[in-house]
């Protein structure tokens, strides 16, 4: 394996990670499940490309505005965020399964619409996206994404989202505007997915609607669950492992996706809490785990003492 190959896998993992972190907030912390986030990635990828691709010189090639990369990233993220606001308005009131079905509908509809928009190359795709994504840019965006998310989650706003996940009704009674916090989680996750889409397009240098299919959405959700719901470090690990794994299994060629499918089932039925199971690999996270363990032991001791004294009296 040469360096460029490993670098490629790392880039892909880093890009996936951004989208996964967004879903981590939506699914892991707020308890909403989406099977349509590839749609937001697509929006990001196409709007991003529109910003950065140089204006068309030859007939037949698809031109853009030729702006610097940062505008592509900002515009891609913003566009996905705006669309998610509309989607949220109409779908966030749906219950359980129906929200996740509506997102599936959104994702597929986005892909099919792009298939039919000839200005962006339709189903054939859009070649000639500048190769702006570098290991450095991806890494920087990753770090920012993790920091923002970690800070958001450890605030009253993040706690309100967790309350929605834990017990929606109780959250409402505790004064949490459930719709608003679901909306915030959805928008943040869409912006993250949009930015991931921009970076993805500028890494592949070619974008095509079928890159953003339901399979892609599912893959993102699977990573979040694999890492452990409600754990940012789990999402990071999950994105690394599950992006690298299929690549490393390339040797097995056609059988690798069979393994992947089987692995997904095995994970669901055997390790339901995911790699990290809601724990964080950070100083505060570890302190918390230890405090909880101590508390649990104390509780057990007390129960044992009570049972013993109850037996004597």
């Amino acid at each position, binding site marked *: 394996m040469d360096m460029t190959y490993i670098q490629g896998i790392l880039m892909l993992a880093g890009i996936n990670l951004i989208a996964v972190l967004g879903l981590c907030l939506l699914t892991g912390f707020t308890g909403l499940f989406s099977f349509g986030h590839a749609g937001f990635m697509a929006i990001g990828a196409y709007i991003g490309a529109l910003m950065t691709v140089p204006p068309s010189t030859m007939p037949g090639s698809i031109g853009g505005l030729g702006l610097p990369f940062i505008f592509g990233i900002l515009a891609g993220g913003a566009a996905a965020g705006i669309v998610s606001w509309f989607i949220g308005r109409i779908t966030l009131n749906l*219950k359980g399964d129906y929200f996740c079905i509506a997102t599936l509908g959104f994702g597929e509809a986005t892909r099919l619409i792009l298939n039919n928009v000839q200005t962006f190359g339709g189903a054939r795709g859009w070649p000639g996206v500048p190769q702006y994504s570098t290991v450095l840019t991806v890494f920087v965006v990753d770090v920012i994404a993790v920091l923002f998310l970690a800070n958001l989650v450890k605030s009253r706003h993040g706690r309100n989202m967790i309350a929605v996940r834990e017990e929606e009704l109780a959250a409402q009674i505790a004064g949490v505007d459930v719709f608003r916090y679901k909306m915030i989680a959805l928008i943040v996750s869409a912006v993250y997915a949009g930015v991931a889409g921009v970076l993805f397009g500028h890494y592949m240098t070619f974008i095509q609607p079928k890159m953003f299919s339901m399979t892609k959405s*599912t893959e993102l959700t699977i990573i979040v669950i694999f890492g452990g719901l409600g754990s940012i470090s789990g999402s990071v690990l999950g994105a690394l492992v599950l992006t690298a794994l299929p690549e490393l299994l390339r040797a097995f060629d056609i059988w690798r996706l069979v393994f992947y499918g089987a692995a997904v089932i095995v994970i669901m*039925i055997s390790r339901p809490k995911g790699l990290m199971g809601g724990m964080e690999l950070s100083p505060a996270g570890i302190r918390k785990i230890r405090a909880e363990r101590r508390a649990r032991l104390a509780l057990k001791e007390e129960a044992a003492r009570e049972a013993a004294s109850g037996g004597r009296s």
Partner: protein
Amino acid sequence: MNQLLQQLVNGLSIGSVYALMAVGYSLVYSIMNFSNFAHGGVIMLGAYFGFFGLTLLKLPFAAAFILASVGTAVLATLIERVAYKPLRDRKAPFLYFIISAMGASILLENVVIATIGPTFRTYPEIFAREPIALGSLAIGRLDLIMFFVSAFCLACLILFIDKTRIGKAIQASAYNMKACALMGVNTDLVVLIVFALGGFLAGIAGVFFGMKYTVYPQIGNITTKSFIAAVFGGLGSLPGAVIGSVLLGVIETLVAGYLSSQFRDLIAFVILIGVLIVRPTGIMGKTAEDKA
């Protein structure tokens, strides 16, 4: 006018096949409250079972048909045992079921790609291609048979659910699984029967689908549309699934006929979102306030 009638007929025929698939989603949803995305894979394998029954085993059509539907019924129950039963035992939230279903669907699709190959295969011609003339309408023989067989199967299913003891147990479990278990209903068996029924109909639908179009590993993705039909109708409601499917079939053919066939696939998703906005639980879905 004539053209409209023709489209309606075509739409009904494809809608009835959607219905065969949609009831499978709905049956499972009604008792387990999750969308069984592995169902598409089961339908796909039904198409392959039928295809190989006809070509490799040189079975007569009816035998191939039965092979396919029994095969998928077994497959569906097998998936239940492997991918869902452990989750049921643990009372896992619905998300785990959905992801496990996705895993099963990825697995099935890729097992087929790895063993049979990704190529498109065409069913041998069973029914003559030239349509039957009915006044000024031309009705494809396959369409006609599809419609009648599907309608017959659906009628049988509804009778089964309404009239037999097992059917009643299914209805009761759909209403309240826990209470049923307490009353001594073998809910585990009910679940298996539901998967077998859904799988059986999926096999029939798969064969028809393969005959009308072609057979290939990603057929499962197209069957997502029947899932959407089940959602229109209101997940968990059998009549809803049938109505939703017929509506979707007709609307799709009309859109393809009058607007553009490019929008054919898109329309399903657009209607999906539209329906969910107007009636958040589908046409026939329950809309009770959650009990607090």
